[in-house]
């Protein structure tokens, strides 16, 4: 599978007339774009880490993200986000399979696996949308003013965070009451998962275009499916970022 051992003895890579890394320009540039994008995401996650660990109190993710669509009030920490991770990993696998079919020039196979990858991307976006909606519209009683004992019902927003420490011995319509939590939580969660979701969305758009191009025979005429490989690199990058977003927000 590798060219390195054989070809390095046969050719001088930097003597001109050929690509020194034995890779197409577009593919190399895609790698470097992905590097720059990972620095951006990395910067966001570093910033999140700095603020999060500088606070005395930060909502535990297993208390905030413990719902599952269709399961109502059941406490299921990490369940939904596990499903999202599984969906994205699966779509990464279908993408590699599409690239694999491209290497063999098999148009039908490419179309099939690209279609599945798009389905996976859309499923992930739907899950993320449900998660956001649930956070924003889910109301929780918050002790807003200790002096007057005023309780308000808050959903998660950029300015209000209902996930603060639990107030002892107080219930509101049978629910536990909390104090307001650190405001930065909303901004970071929606900002970073939103930025990632935007990448997933653009990835789905790109994959759809690739699917149409493959189906109409553009790559067949060109003689190679390199474009699919580049789209594949982008898609795997999106999956990789999710691995780390999921790590930072839900696990540590």
């Amino acid at each position, binding site marked *: *599978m590798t060219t390195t051992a054989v070809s390095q003895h046969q050719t001088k*890579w930097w003597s001109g007339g050929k*690509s020194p890394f034995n*890779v197409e320009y577009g593919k190399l540039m895609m790698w470097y774009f992905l590097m720059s994008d990972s620095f951006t995401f990395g910067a966001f996650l570093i910033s999140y880490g700095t603020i999060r660990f500088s606070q005395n109190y930060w909502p535990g993710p297993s208390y905030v993200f413990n719902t599952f669509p269709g399961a109502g009030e059941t406490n299921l920490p990490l369940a939904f986000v*596990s499903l999202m991770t599984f969906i994205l990993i699966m779509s990464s*696998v279908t993408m590699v399979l599409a690239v694999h079919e491209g290497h063999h020039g098999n148009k039908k196979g490419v179309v099939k696996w690209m279609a599945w990858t798009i389905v996976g991307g859309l499923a992930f976006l739907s899950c993320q949308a449900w998660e956001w909606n649930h956070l924003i519209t889910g109301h929780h009683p918050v002790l807003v003013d200790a002096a007057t004992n005023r309780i308000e019902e808050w959903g998660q927003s950029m300015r209000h965070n209902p996930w603060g420490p639990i107030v002892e011995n107080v219930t509101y319509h049978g629910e536990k009451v909390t104090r307001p939590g650190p405001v930065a939580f909303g901004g970071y969660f929606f900002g970073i998962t939103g930025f990632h979701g935007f990448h997933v969305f653009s990835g789905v758009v790109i994959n759809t275009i690739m699917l149409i191009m493959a189906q109409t025979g553009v790559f067949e005429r060109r003689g*190679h499916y390199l474009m699919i490989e580049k789209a594949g690199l982008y898609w795997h990058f999106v999956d990789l970022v999710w691995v780390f977003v999921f790590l930072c927000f839900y*696990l540590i």
Partner: protein
Amino acid sequence: MEHGVAEVTIHHEPASTTKRIWKVFWILLIITIVELTLGISLYLLDLPEGLRMHLIKGVIIILSLAKAYYIVSVFMHLGDEIRNMIMTVVVPLMLFIWFI
């Protein structure tokens, strides 16, 4: 495979089966399940701030880095590229991780 214009790359044989891909899928799935198990145990055990909690978090982070290695090397085929090119990607990333 010739690209027409100025670029010439030497074609290498693609893998004939998808076995490697599915093998890595199972590896990723198992690593993810282990990570989730550790995460749930952190939640259920509710450990106080201390060595054990940080140790478990450290293991989870290392597992995520392992996942990253598999995705980049096999799914993105970086492992199959010329060594120098791999280095142009890996070295800045390592520096960045050190920066983190």
